């Protein structure tokens, strides 16, 4: 873990309700991301990762809670806040307008954010394309003429042109083959150092998270169940859900995991279990889990867990 720097983005007791049914996709999430770190957010599909990201981005209204950016409270639609926090889509090809040339798409972001001088736009675009390892001549192409890796680099370049401070990466390596994955991750690390970025990386690929993240939050059904430095969380997971996730990840050395695998699917947001949300699937649930939601407790200074039994169960059982 890096030394703790100033907090860049924090969320306190964030609640996001979706649709007319007011489903609580995010229910009381608090997290804080330090400047310069790579913060991983993991969890199964549908646990609210993307909704949380959209809320942090200001694209999704917040029902309750507070988001601060560099100490200042962010309103949902403040433009300045928007430029500082940017989002790289999971499918970068589909995130580009198919009718617009790459160069025009890149220039558009600059136009929106007040850089309207053609020459300056072109200079910044050429510089950014070089920074993400692409030929500036690619600007004349259409999105469908690019490869998956190139589209991903364009997606990143488009965001970085706006000079954000926090970049939310949604599954940055999904759908790429391993060699391209590695190249994209190296590029992300290089860009972070070069532009002084902070990353919030959303993924369910624990291998990727383990390789690049400094700290990790594990999300289950709209709540964060465990937060900690990557090293300590992977070495000694405290929450049974984290342990199950780690166990479910394939090990290259073929060793069997100690924790039992997860059974069943996560419950629907329409029928959230009472008490601890994980108790119906939890291998170590006790009666109190079904009635009382566990409080967030400190394991160590930087490691929090929300489980009634974190002290009893040894992680290496």
């Amino acid at each position, binding site marked *: 873990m890096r030394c703790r720097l100033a907090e860049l983005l924090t969320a306190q007791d964030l609640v996001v309700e979706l649709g007319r049914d007011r489903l609580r996709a995010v229910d009381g999430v608090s997290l804080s991301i330090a400047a310069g770190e790579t913060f991983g957010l993991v969890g199964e599909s549908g646990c609210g990762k993307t909704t949380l990201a959209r809320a942090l981005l200001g694209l999704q209204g917040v029902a309750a809670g507070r988001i601060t950016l560099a100490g200042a409270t962010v309103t949902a639609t403040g433009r300045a806040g928007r430029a500082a926090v940017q989002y790289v889509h999971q499918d970068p090809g*589909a995130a580009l307008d*198919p009718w617009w040339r790459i160069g025009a798409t890149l220039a558009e972001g600059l136009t*929106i954010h007040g850089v309207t001088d053609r020459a300056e736009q072109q200079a910044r675009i050429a510089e950014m394309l070089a920074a993400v390892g692409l030929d500036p001549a690619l600007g004349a192409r259409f999105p469908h003429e690019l490869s998956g890796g190139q589209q991903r680099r364009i997606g990143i370049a488009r965001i970085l042109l706006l000079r954000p401070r926090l970049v939310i990466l949604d599954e940055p390596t999904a759908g790429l083959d391993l060699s391209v994955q590695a190249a994209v991750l190296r590029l992300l690390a290089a860009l972070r150092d070069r532009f002084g970025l902070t990353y919030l990386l959303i993924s369910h690929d624990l291998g990727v998270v383990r390789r690049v993240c400094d700290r990790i939050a594990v999300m289950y059904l709209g709540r964060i169940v465990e937060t900690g430095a990557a090293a300590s969380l992977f070495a000694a997971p405290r929450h049974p859900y984290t342990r199950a996730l780690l166990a479910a990840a394939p090990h290259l050395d073929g060793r069997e995991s100690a924790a039992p695998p997860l059974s069943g699917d996560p419950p629907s947001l329409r029928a959230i279990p009472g008490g601890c949300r994980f108790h119906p699937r939890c291998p170590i649930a006790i009666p109190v889990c079904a009635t009382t939601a566990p409080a967030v407790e400190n394991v160590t200074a930087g490691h929090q867990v929300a489980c009634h039994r974190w002290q009893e169960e040894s992680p290496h059982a």
Partner: protein
Amino acid sequence: MRRLLRDPVATLGFGLILLAVFVALFAPWLAPYPDDAFDSHLLQRLRPPSAEFPFGTDNLGRDILSRVILGTRDALTVALAVVGAAMLIGVPVGLVAGWREGWLAELLMRVTDVFLAVPQLILALALGQLMAPGIGTAMLALALTYWPFFARTVFAETRRLRGALFVDALAGIGASPARILLLHVLPNAAPAILVRATIGMGFTILTAALLGFLGVGAAPPSPDWGLMVSEARQHLPEAWWFPTFPGLAIFLLVLGFNLLGDGLRDLADPRLRRSR
């Protein structure tokens, strides 16, 4: 464009339209008797086709070939004006209703449905009674009944595109709704609008001719195709050439627009576009 020409049927349609546009532009020079739009020569009425009058003459002795040629311009002008006016109303309605959610979208689409439910001919006849029957009234009626088709098309496209990832990405980098709608949604919806407009041109020509036939469209002595067919009724079956050639002109031009519209629809299908 090149891909369009690879489709022989669409190319035929495109050729027919080009021919019609050419004829419309140069009608006064192409028509053998350009004055026959209005002049009558009662001594040579209802002559069968001959070298002198290739399409024969009508009940007032006017050269039918000349009148068919002179009628092209009106037919195209009416179609363009009606489709243009229908787009001016329908496209913004569809964009706004497709983008917004809630009462405004509901209101716009329900109004659209009401207009969609009004039968074109009845509205045209009613307007003709209220106002002076004439080509202007017919165009107004056609535009008032055709815009809902554009509204629905654009509405569906906007709804589809609103959920597209690139629109979400644009919102993410701070693009305003106006920018997204006008610069991104509209161009992406353009193929569907173009297809609708092309088919609408054919439809409008046909309906305008029908209104002319019923007497609420163009007024005599304008060289209107529908009106010519209507005037010919009393001289059937002896003067077969009288309704045949204007009818053929209507048929070919409508066919041209429909064939081109179908070809454009195939081109606009993104699945086909990708694979080529």
